[in-house]
């Protein structure tokens, strides 16, 4: 008797969500099986890799990166253009760190201007991340979503605290995509999608950011969370969890001691920049393997490695 490969079929399907517009627009999700399981079913759209830039000059970043970007990093629009031309990622993530009340506390209007200049300077899809301060993000996104209307951006993120204003501005008023952020909590991840739905945001306009951690920092818990969410979406056909997942890897990996410590303080660990890339690539690879549909990285070398990884497997 001929060998018959057994196949795990699922009833559920991950929604396909488009970000950006025109030729460079990207689609996330659309799969009917687990990540890279092309022997079991349709794996949907390939995983997308984005590059992080910030609205203020990144003083904290490693010297190598600052040298690489040079003066471009002093102007977000120039910087975005540079990234598009030189690195060609799948998308760019503009992080509005300058709005942080504990830092420059820039006004929502200032942020809106920056975001508008960036989105107009590039063809690539734009993901716009806030400060992580829920109250401030709600105010900032209210202005920014209006300023970039028509560009179909993804906003990171709506949380349990501010989902009403962020969902209403990004998802309802200005036709963008809403990132729904929960901190490695499966029940909250589901609840937030339900709440956004009850607000009127379509499931098809939501991308989940279910939390992130650097490899080695409770990462197994994150992995099991993504796993459980995907199995609920696919095997239990749970419509409230069939959103693609984006993971801003660089937001976490460049803030841990392995990437912060200078070589002079930790000579055994070797070059700081190399460590940062390793941390970023390790984390991004792991989270893509378990189910994330998009990751955000900071270093061009990480981008190159991850694009190659996706290319080889997808």
């Amino acid at each position, binding site marked *: 008797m001929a060998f018959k490969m057994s196949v795990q079929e699922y009833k559920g399907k991950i929604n396909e969500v488009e970000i950006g517009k025109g030729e460079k627009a990207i689609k996330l999700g659309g799969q009917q099986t687990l990540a890279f399981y092309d022997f079991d079913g349709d794996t949907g759209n390939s995983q997308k890799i984005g590059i992080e830039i910030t609205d203020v000059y990144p003083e904290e970043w490693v010297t190598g990166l600052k040298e690489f970007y040079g003066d471009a990093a002093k102007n977000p629009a120039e910087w975005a253009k540079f990234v598009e031309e030189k690195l060609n990622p799948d998308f760019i993530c503009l992080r509005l760190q300058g709005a942080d009340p504990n830092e420059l506390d820039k006004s929502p209007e200032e942020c809106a201007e920056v975001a508008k200049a960036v989105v107009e300077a590039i063809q690539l899809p734009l993901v716009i991340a806030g400060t992580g301060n829920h109250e401030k993000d709600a105010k900032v996104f209210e202005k920014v979503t209006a300023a970039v209307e028509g560009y179909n951006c993804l906003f990171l993120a709506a949380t349990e605290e501010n989902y009403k204003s962020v969902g209403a501005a990004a998802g309802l008023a200005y036709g963008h995509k809403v990132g729904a952020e929960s901190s490695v909590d*499966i*029940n*909250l991840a*589901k*609840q937030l999608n*339900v*709440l956004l739905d*009850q607000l009127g945001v379509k499931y098809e306009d939501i991308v989940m950011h279910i939390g992130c951690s650097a490899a080695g920092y409770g990462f197994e818990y994150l992995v099991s969370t993504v796993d*459980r*969410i995907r199995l*609920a979406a696919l095997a*239990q056909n*749970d419509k*409230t*969890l069939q959103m693609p997942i984006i993971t801003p890897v660089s937001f976490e990996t460049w803030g841990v001691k392995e990437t912060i410590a200078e070589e002079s303080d930790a000579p055994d660990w070797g070059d700081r920049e190399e460590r940062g890339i390793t941390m970023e690539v390790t984390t991004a690879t792991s989270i893509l393997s378990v189910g994330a549909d998009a990751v955000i990285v900071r270093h061009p070398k990480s981008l190159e490695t991850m694009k190659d990884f996706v290319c080889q497997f997808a």
Partner: protein
Amino acid sequence: MEKFLVIGERIHCISPAIRKALAEKDPAPILKRAKEQIEAGADYVDVNIGPAEKNGEELMTWAVQLIQSEFDNVPLALDTVNRKAIEAGLKVYNKEKGKAIINSADAGPRIDLFDLAAEYDAKIIGLCAKEGIPRDCEERIAYCTEMLEKAMEVGLDPSDILFDPLFLVIKGMQEKQSEVLEAIRQITEMGLKTTGGLSNVSNGAPKHVRPILDTGFAAMAIQCGLSSAIINPCDKELMDMIKTCDVIKNNILYADSYLDL
């Protein structure tokens, strides 16, 4: 485990409004009840046209097309003792959203309905009975096995059979309830699916007592493995209990708003 499958019972010729609508081919009352049940969370809508000896084929064809065209091919359970009417319904049934359920075969005179299920790629409810009410759990399992053999013969996948152990009225047959629950447990342990007409258990009880009898029995039966039931989905307490059981059994992921879903 898959989440509990709810089959809505409210399109039934025993209801005067439905009987009249079926007699006059008046779509409105039928569509209204279908809509209510779908909105309340029914996965399947049962369509009971009664024995319909004269015009069963025509009536089932009409009802199936009426409901499926109005509600995006919602899956249906075709419910009548008239075999020809079931076949007529299966002929026009659209299985895009799920196979039809034949309601129902038994281990006795209606065992030939398994042939129809195989021929039309439908699911089928298999009543664990032959003539009259099965005595105990053992007798139910014997009928279950007979039907399983028949299904194998005609090439029907066991997962397409919903075995009905025959729920009995509590008022008057209290001593039989444990037998029913035990049958559910044993059928489930064989890896098979189960169903039943839940409101049987509360028959004859006062109106205000019926929901709690139904709900309590449902929870106990689900713990024994019951995988679906023919119920009134507009009974909110019952639906909330089913959702809660699904959460406790980890068939669906908990969220604070799970009762709203």
